[in-house]
């Protein structure tokens, strides 16, 4: 895992949170860990293939996720926000991952991602990758966001 693979996700997360939810994110820490297993109960998982191979996992605490969704749909009633809860979070994570792939692929390569898989109660059986991972953490006025990125160049 190359350390520079994390930067596009950091840039993407800050940009997309601002644009889609008007939430300011601040990076608080970046470290190397052994797996993509998330720290929080709500997580969104992407598989990556093409020029790079691996997995990206975003996770929030439930109360943070609720507030993020209400910022994404400020004019909607609570029932509508609840109806779109999983899909709104998946869309947000999808756009961050998409933004990162643009930066990582450069002019020549193509990176594919899988549709997002959302787990809303930290499913212990979910298939997380046991592979050197970069763990990035962010703070916001509604709580923290964690991004775990495990990528390598496809052989």
């Amino acid at each position, binding site marked *: 895992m190359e350390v520079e693979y994390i930067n596009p996700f950091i840039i993407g997360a800050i940009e997309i949170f601002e644009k889609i939810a008007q939430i300011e994110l601040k990076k608080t820490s970046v470290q190397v860990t052994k797996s993509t297993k998330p720290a929080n109960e709500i997580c969104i998982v992407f598989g990556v293939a093409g020029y790079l191979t691996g997995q990206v996992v975003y996770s929030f605490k439930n109360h943070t996720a609720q507030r993020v969704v209400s910022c994404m749909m400020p004019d909607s009633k609570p029932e509508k926000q609840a109806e779109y809860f999983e*899909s709104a979070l998946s869309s947000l994570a999808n756009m961050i991952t998409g933004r990162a792939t643009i930066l990582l692929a450069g002019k020549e390569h193509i990176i594919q991602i899988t549709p997002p898989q959302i787990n809303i109660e930290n499913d212990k059986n979910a298939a997380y990758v046991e592979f050197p991972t970069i763990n990035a953490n962010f703070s916001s006025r509604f709580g923290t966001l964690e991004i775990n990125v495990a990528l390598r160049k496809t052989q």
Partner: protein
Amino acid sequence: MATILLADDLAFIKMVQKEILQKEGYDIIGEAADGLEVIEKYKKLRPDVVIMDITMPKMDGLNALKAIRQLDPDARVIVCSALGQQQLIIEAIKIGAKDFIVKPFDPPRLATAIQKALK
């Protein structure tokens, strides 16, 4: 008014697109959540324009675009994806997409793409 078919696996994205397009007076005649469903709905509904995501289950948007263009060489498909990589944009245009919109997009961008596709 022109008829539109929306294809995206994420309901939130289709809800946002629908709100923008209905305000512009377009008629959303169908929605699909994967690549196979969008081909089926295209056959049945023959919309004026399809707004197509790339990353979808069962079949991705680029393969669905190929299949739709085979069914109807005049099909007007606009790709709308978060994966705005240069090589993917080139590929989509090569197989017949009228335009490529990168998510997140500004609402006027979507409306302009449709006006252009309809010309």
